């Protein structure tokens, strides 16, 4: 058994930590994250409030935990939604080739002209800012990314002998895509999904910070930071914790993705 790469191990530890905390928040948080108590605002860390309280007396740990859950949910939905559309488009492009492939790839190019923030801005201008719009915007930018990765990997598999054999046996392009292509490119897609998960967490935080994502009273690391920014003379510590949480989560998924790629594609690992 080969030793697992260090980035994979560290990434796995960090991801388990974040996901574990997010899961735990479903059943337990030290306090209710939304309960305000003006009498205990800006409380320092104590046995009661491990990291103290914010300007409205809300427990910081409870908020961070609830925010972790929101962050994971947003990233999961965005990557699943954008990813599955992208993978479907990529498979389609690869299976049909010709003008369909060209068309899909041109569309993907077009998608790259819109960073998530621009898309979120348009949606917010039209529908008003909301977490749903943020999720849609992040999903949208995932489509071209997954479409490209899928098409590139799928095109390689289409040249394999067993695919040729399946075609000779009269199987249709879609059946082959489902039974032969998809299972063989799953690893590449999972690697990409892990990395995009990290990107999505970062995007959600930025959008929420800018007011285009999570709206009060929903907890979000990004929103906590934008509130903390106005209080940095009074309570600078409030601007530290949410940022650290973002870094841990993004770093975790990023390392995990790199590690997974090293494991599934040793050729690439050596080249780096």
């Amino acid at each position, binding site marked *: 058994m080969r030793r697992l790469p260090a980035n994979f191990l560290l990434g796995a530890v960090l991801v388990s930590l974040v996901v574990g905390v997010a899961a735990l928040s479903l059943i337990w948080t030290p306090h209710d994250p939304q309960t305000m108590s003006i009498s205990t605002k800006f409380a320092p860390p104590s046995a009661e409030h491990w990291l103290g309280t914010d300007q409205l007396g809300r427990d910081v740990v409870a908020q961070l935990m609830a925010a972790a859950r929101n962050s994971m949910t947003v990233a999961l939905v965005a990557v699943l939604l954008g990813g599955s559309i992208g993978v479907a488009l990529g498979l389609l492009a690869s299976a049909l080739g010709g003008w369909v492939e060209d068309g899909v790839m041109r569309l993907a*190019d*077009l998608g*790259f*002209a*819109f*960073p*998530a*923030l*621009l898309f979120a*801005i*348009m*949606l*917010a*201008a*039209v*529908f008003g*800012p909301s977490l749903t719009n943020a999720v849609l915007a992040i999903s949208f930018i995932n489509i071209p990314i997954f479409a490209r990765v899928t098409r590139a990997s799928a095109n390689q598999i289409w040249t394999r002998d067993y695919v040729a054999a399946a075609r000779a046996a009269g199987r249709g392009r879609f059946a082959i895509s489902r039974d032969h292509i998809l299972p063989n490119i799953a690893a590449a897609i999972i690697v990409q999904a892990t990395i995009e998960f*990290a990107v999505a967490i*970062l995007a959600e*935080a*930025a959008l929420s*910070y*800018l*007011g*285009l994502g999570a709206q009060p009273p929903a907890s979000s690391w*990004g929103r906590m*930071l934008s509130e*903390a*920014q106005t209080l*940095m*003379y009074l309570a*600078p510590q409030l*601007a530290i914790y*949410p*940022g650290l949480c*973002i*870094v841990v989560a*993004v*770093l975790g998924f*990023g*390392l995990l993705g790199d590690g997974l790629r090293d494991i599934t594609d040793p050729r690439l690992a050596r*080249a*780096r």
Partner: protein
Amino acid sequence: MAYFLFRRTLGFVLTLLAVSVVVFAVMNVLPGDPALTILGMDASEDALAALREQLGLNAPLVTRYVSWVWNALQGDFGISHSFRVPVSELISERLPMTISLAVAGMLVTLVLALSLGITAAAQHGRAGDWGVMFLSQLGIAVPAFWLSILLVMLFAVKLRWLPPGGFAGWDDPVAALRSLILPTVALALVQSAVLARVTRSSALEVMRQDFVRTARASGLSHRRILWRHVLPNALVPIVTIVGMQFAALVTGTIVIENVFYLPGLGRLIFQSIANRDLPTVQALVMLFAAIVVTANFVVDLLYVVIDPRLKARA
């Protein structure tokens, strides 16, 4: 060569057109009635009708699209609904701010990323390499706006060396530059994290090539080989990433302007969203997307400048 230029330019123009269609569609078709979006549910029917008339909403969609593009090409983006001045005026007032920030950010990014990346490659497998790789891994995970807040807390709140935000204009150049330092650093640090990695791996790739051995055999120093021979050859992938990063940089300026309260286009976008000023948002989104597309177009052309082999093929 001419054919290459023609094809690339055609592709560029078509992409811009497609982008404008997307922007127009999202901003005009999705909302159903933009006038209602702008004025809100409780607007009177008269006010709505007046606004529709003013925005030209009564014309068919295609006509509206064509006239939007046609006018935009002549620098006319309509009238801002909230500021009640031409959008083009708003843009030209704030463009210098955004451009200064983007250019400064890009320059600092290039200097930082290239030197860190090349150093790491030269130190391949040793402490310096690990250090740079660790920092860049971290840098990729740090959100620019959080880094900004930390920088402000340290350099503005605690040490009081630099202003925490705002921009008083170029009348006092020293003050202006001082208020740009933190935003630039925040923008550049995060950007250079990605670029330093690309520079490193690209340089490592080049260092394996035969001509590096030739250079060494001619008695050139490591330093000279790295900067004069390896770096130029490593540039092609670096330039690709720089082009792609331009999108991130543009997004970055929008964020950073909002963190530091800088009166640029990024701030204008958010004011316009808050004011439901659809024509302004539409113009700005189009402008930003056009910048991203243009950056990628320029990168395509740059390849040819960097690599004489491509000139021959193109």
